[in-house]
């Protein structure tokens, strides 16, 4: 029994080390000046002071502008798709009606349509409408990408709230909408926050559409901004890694804070079956 425990811990710790090493390397690289970075054998310890390095970089590079663009686009998309998701999920979770199965199927079907293929017809339409190279085009796309996920997540959270609560309120003469806003939504606020977080993360991380639809570097969002550091002949890896840390830390914090809810939202649909 004792020996099993030790093996368990050893395996877990080794796995964590292997999985974490690339992140360690990200941090170390971001804190090394180029002359340390480009030496062989590599140096495994950080050199620069993290606080001044990151603050200097934030001040002297365009990364703050990218973050602003990303937050604006993802924020608007998250707000819209969460609202759409609340109503859509409420409908699917609480009512029985004709066509519901088809609607659910349609929502799941969207997962089969990856961005790399979707981007061709979308580009075609947006080019006609003059939407290419606007942040508005990204907002529209991110609403579209996150709405199905928002509906699916929230359905799981709606399902977890007993129907009796509503039935009591209906008998008391409350309207459907009043019921939704005054009784149900406050009960599932953690679920709504988790869904919104997830939608935000997806939008913030998106690459293909941003890369294809945005040309001018004033409108760059985080994902394409960082990738733009890669040059054909020369790449400043220290800069890339510093920028990566700056744009990743807020998202990781968000993720870790809501981890529990995110996991329950994600697994509600697939596990219950």
């Amino acid at each position: 029994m004792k020996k099993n425990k030790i093996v368990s811990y050893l395996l877990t710790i080794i796995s964590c080390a292997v999985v974490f090493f690339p992140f360690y390397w990200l941090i170390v690289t971001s804190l090394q000046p180029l002359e340390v970075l480009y030496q062989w054998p590599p140096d495994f310890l950080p050199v620069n002071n993290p606080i001044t390095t990151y603050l200097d970089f934030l001040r002297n590079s365009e990364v703050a502008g990218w973050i602003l663009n990303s937050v604006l686009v993802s924020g608007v998309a998250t707000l819209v798709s969460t609202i759409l998701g609340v109503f859509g999920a409420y409908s699917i979770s609480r009512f029985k009606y004709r066509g519901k199965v088809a609607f659910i199927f349609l929502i799941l079907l969207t997962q089969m349509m990856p961005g790399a293929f979707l981007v061709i017809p979308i580009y075609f339409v947006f080019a006609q409408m003059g939407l290419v190279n606007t942040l508005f085009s990204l907002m529209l796309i991110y609403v579209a990408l996150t709405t199905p996920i928002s509906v699916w997540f929230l359905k799981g959270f709606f399902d977890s709230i007993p129907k009796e609560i509503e039935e009591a309120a209906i008998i008391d003469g409350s309207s459907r909408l009043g019921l939704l806003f005054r009784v149900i939504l406050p009960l599932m606020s953690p679920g709504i926050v988790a869904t919104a977080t997830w939608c935000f993360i997806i939008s913030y991380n998106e690459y293909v559409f941003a890369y294809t639809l945005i040309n001018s570097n004033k409108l760059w969002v985080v994902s394409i901004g960082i990738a733009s550091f890669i040059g054909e002949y020369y790449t400043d890896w220290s800069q890339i890694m510093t920028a990566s840390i700056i744009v990743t830390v807020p998202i990781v914090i968000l993720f870790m804070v809501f981890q529990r809810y995110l996991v329950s939202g994600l697994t509600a649909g697939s596990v219950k079956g």
Partner: protein
Amino acid sequence: MKKRLLFNKEPYLFIAPALLVIFIFMLVPIFLTVFLSVTDANILTVRNLDFDFIGFSNYLQFLRSGIFENVVTSTIIFVFGSVILTYVFGMYVAILLNQAIRLKPIFRGILILPWAVPQVVLVLIWKWMVNPQYGVLKYFLVGPGLVSEDFTFLGNPNFAMITILIVSLWRSYPLASVILLAGLKTIPEELYEAASIDGANPFQKFIFITLPGLRYVSSVLVLLLTIWSVGNFVIIWLMTGGGPADRTAVLAIYSYINAFKFTKLGYGAAIGMIALLFSLAISIIYYRLFMQRQEQEK
């Protein structure tokens, strides 16, 4: 409560906005892709709607081009490779996290970390780690003499694909683990206790209790992983851009390159359609093989 017999339009009104968004941005584009795939639309002239119908020429051109086999082979290797690796490692991590150990929240936080980080950042970290001159992974391999000094990960077609598969694994296993972990929690503890009394070893318990218990979760997960990896773009795009010599150009990459780099939107759309049909075919075969039988058993 009495069921209302009148037609109730409330649920339709509630779901209408979400469905409208999905319809406009997901369904309409599928039809548009079909439409574009039979035209010679080019990005440079597409704004003036200046293109002609050319029937199935795009499809035929792709099927007859020497690269077709190459692209399909790469796609199959990438899809099956990453699904199998992700499932196996995801299962391993799920089992680790399902044990009664201390500090579990910390271990879990680390083990699912790659899930939280933007995909672009994940790929760039690896691109730096496999850098041909200063990459730390090269250092690990050169040190014990496993590879020579002039070895490059992404210059060699086979190693390029292996590297991409590893990045893809590192990116997607956390999600697999989380879903499998949720599935593990639904398997009653009594089954394992009974098996212990009967003298079953851990391996037997895994084969005869864990795997059957995870059947439904696994089949949904594998299907999702397959569909996602057919459409995965960012990892290969940023790691190799499809190279060397198009050897890592999967359907998603090849479609994108043709549509946006070579500006042949129609040709790219045709390749995209082939990828979609590929993904659909896998889903149907898969459904027939695994999921249908299970639903009948239910």
